[in-house]
C-alpha cells in the first residue's frame, strides 16, 4: 500500500515534468522574439552579447574657419551628425554630436590615440587648435564652453580655479563637472566634479583655411 502510493506519486511527478519541459520551452520560444523586439539591432540568437557601440558613420563637416578662431580662447560650436545602422524605415538612425573647436594660446600634443582603434591615422598630431565633443563624459549632458572663468565659480557650484588655470574653462550644468581645455598633459583634464575622464575629441584636418572634422572618438551615449 505504502509502496504503491509512493510509486504513483513518482509517476505523477514524472508526467508533470514531461509536460512542464515543453511548455517552458514553448514559453521561452515565445519570449525570445520579444527580447529581440526590444533590442532589434543585434544578430539573431546573439542577445546576450555585449552591446557593442554601433559602428557609426559620420559625415565630414566644416566646424569653423581659421579666421573665426584667430585669437587664443576663441571658440566655435558646431553639430556633427552620426548615422547608426537601425531597423527603422530609413535603415539608419541619426544622432547629433555637438562639438566645440577651441584656439589655445600654445601648441599641445592632441589626445588622439583612439584613432588607431577605428583604423584611422590622425592627420594633425600637434596643434594649438583642439576640437572637443560637447557631450559630457559623465552622464551625457551638453556642457558649455565658458570664456570667463568667473562664471564657472558663480554658476557651476562654486569651484575657484587656481591662478594658473584662470582662463576659459568648460563646465557642465547637469552635475558641475569642470574641464580645462588647455591642460598640456591631458587636454580637457577634469578639474572638479564627478566626470570620470576628459571629454572625447574629434579628428580634424585643415582644408582651405577651414577646420574640417572627420570623426569623433567612439563611446558614450550620444
Amino acid at each position, binding site marked *: 500500500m505504502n509502496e504503491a502510493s509512493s510509486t504513483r506519486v513518482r509517476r505523477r511527478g514524472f508526467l508533470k515534468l514531461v509536460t512542464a519541459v515543453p511548455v517552458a520551452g514553448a514559453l521561452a520560444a515565445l519570449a525570445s522574439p520579444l527580447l529581440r523586439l526590444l533590442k532589434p539591432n543585434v544578430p539573431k540568437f546573439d542577445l546576450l552579447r555585449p552591446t557593442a557601440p554601433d559602428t557609426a558613420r559620420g559625415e565630414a563637416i566644416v566646424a569653423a574657419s581659421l579666421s573665426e578662431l584667430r585669437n587664443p580662447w576663441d571658440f566655435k560650436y558646431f553639430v556633427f551628425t552620426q548615422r547608426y545602422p537601425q531597423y527603422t524605415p530609413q535603415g539608419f538612425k541619426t544622432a547629433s554630436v555637438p562639438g566645440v573647436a577651441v584656439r589655445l594660446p600654445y601648441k599641445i600634443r592632441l589626445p588622439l590615440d583612439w584613432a588607431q582603434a577605428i583604423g584611422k591615422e590622425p592627420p594633425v598630431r600637434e596643434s594649438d587648435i583642439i576640437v572637443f565633443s560637447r557631450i559630457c563624459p559623465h552622464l551625457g549632458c551638453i556642457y558649455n564652453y565658458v570664456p570667463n572663468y568667473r562664471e564657472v565659480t558663480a*554658476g557651476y557650484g562654486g569651484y575657484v580655479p587656481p591662478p594658473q588655470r584662470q582662463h576659459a574653462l568648460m563646465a557642465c550644468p547637469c552635475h558641475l563637472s569642470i574641464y580645462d581645455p588647455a591642460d598640456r598633459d591631458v587636454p580637457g583634464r577634469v578639474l572638479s566634479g*564627478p566626470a570620470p575622464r576628459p571629454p572625447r575629441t574629434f579628428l580634424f584636418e585643415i582644408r582651405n583655411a577651414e577646420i574640417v572634422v572627420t570623426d569623433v572618438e567612439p563611446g558614450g551615449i550620444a
Partner: protein
Amino acid sequence: MWERLRDWVRERREHLNLFDETLVARQDNPMYLLGPLLYYFWLITVVTGVVLMIWYEPTTAGAYTSIERIQREVPLGWLIRGLHKYAADGVILTIILRIYRMYFLGEYKKPGELSWMLGFLGLILAMISGITGYLLIWNQRAFWAAKTVLTVPVYFDELPVIGRMGFGSMIAYIFLGGPAIGQATITRFYAIHFGISLVLLILIEVFFQRTRRKRINMSLLPIVLFLAMLVVISYILPAESGRRADPTRTPLPILSDWYFLALYQYVKYTPPLWAGLGPGLLIGYGMLVPFLDRSKGRRPLERPFFFVVGVMALLYFLAFTTLILFNIAVIEREPFIIMNLTAVILVLAFLWELRYRRRQRTAAPPPAPAAGGAAGH
C-alpha cells in the same frame, strides 16, 4: 526547504495589508489614512491619465505642442492635467510617508514582511512611472533627466566580472530604443508609464476581489476634501510645461521632480559608477530590512541602529534637496565630509545598539545560567 518557503509566503499573504484596509480601529489617526489615500490618489491618476491619452500625441514633434494644447485649449484640460500631476505627486508622497510609518513603527516585522516589501517595490515602480511620465512632456527638464538617468546604467559595465557582459549598456539601449533619445524613447516611455500603473491596478483589483477587503477604507469627508484640495492646487499652481526639449543645449540650472532632487545632488557628489550602485544598495537595504532587523520590539527606540538609519535617510533627503535647490556642491570638499560624518554616525548608532542590548540582557532576569547570554537578541 521548498515547503518552508511556501508556508512562509502563505502566512505573509494572509496578513497582507497593502492599503491599511484592516486598520479600521485607527481611522482617527491621519497616519493611518495613508493607505486608503494612496489607493485613492492612484485611481485619480489612472483615470485622468486615460483622459489625457485622448489628447496627447506621443511624438517628438507633437508631444510638447499637444501638452500645451491640453493646458490652454482643451476644455478643462488644465484641470485634468493638474489632477494627473498632483495626484501622482500625492501617490509618491503618501507612499513615502507610509513607508516611513511602517519603518519607524516596526510594521515590517513578522508577519508584515511581504506587505513592507510590496510597498517598497511600489515606491520604486511609482518613481519609474514618474520619470517615464515626465519625459512625455518633452521639455528641457524631461529630456536631460532621461538622458542622465539612462547613462547611469552604462557605468555598470565597469564592474569587474558582471560588467564584461554589457548588461548596463543593454539596459540603456532597451529603454532608449537606440543609441540616443528620440522617437523610440518616447514610445517606450509612454508604454512603460501606462503599463506600470495599469498592470499593477489589475493585480490589486484581483487581490481585493479575492480577499473581499474594502478598497478605500475611509469616510466620505477625506475623500471629498482631498479631491477639492487637488482641484484648488491645479487651479492656483497649474502644472508647468517648461521649455521645449533642445538636444543641443543643457539648461542651467536644471532641476528634476521633487522626489529625485536628493538623488540628483548625490549624483553630483559621487563617481558615476556609485551613482548607480548607491541607490541600488539603498533599495537592497530597504527590501531586506525585515530580515536584517531581528530585534523583538516594535517601538523605534527599541532598535536604535535602525532608528538612526531611518532618521539619517530622512535628514539627507531634506538636506540634499535644499542644497540642490541652491545649486551648491563643492565637490572637492563636501563628499569627504559627508562620508566621514556618515561613518561616524553609523558607528555610534551601532555602539548604541550594543549598549541597549546589553542593558536589556542584564535587566531581564537571567533565564538559564548556561544557554542565555551570547545568542540573545
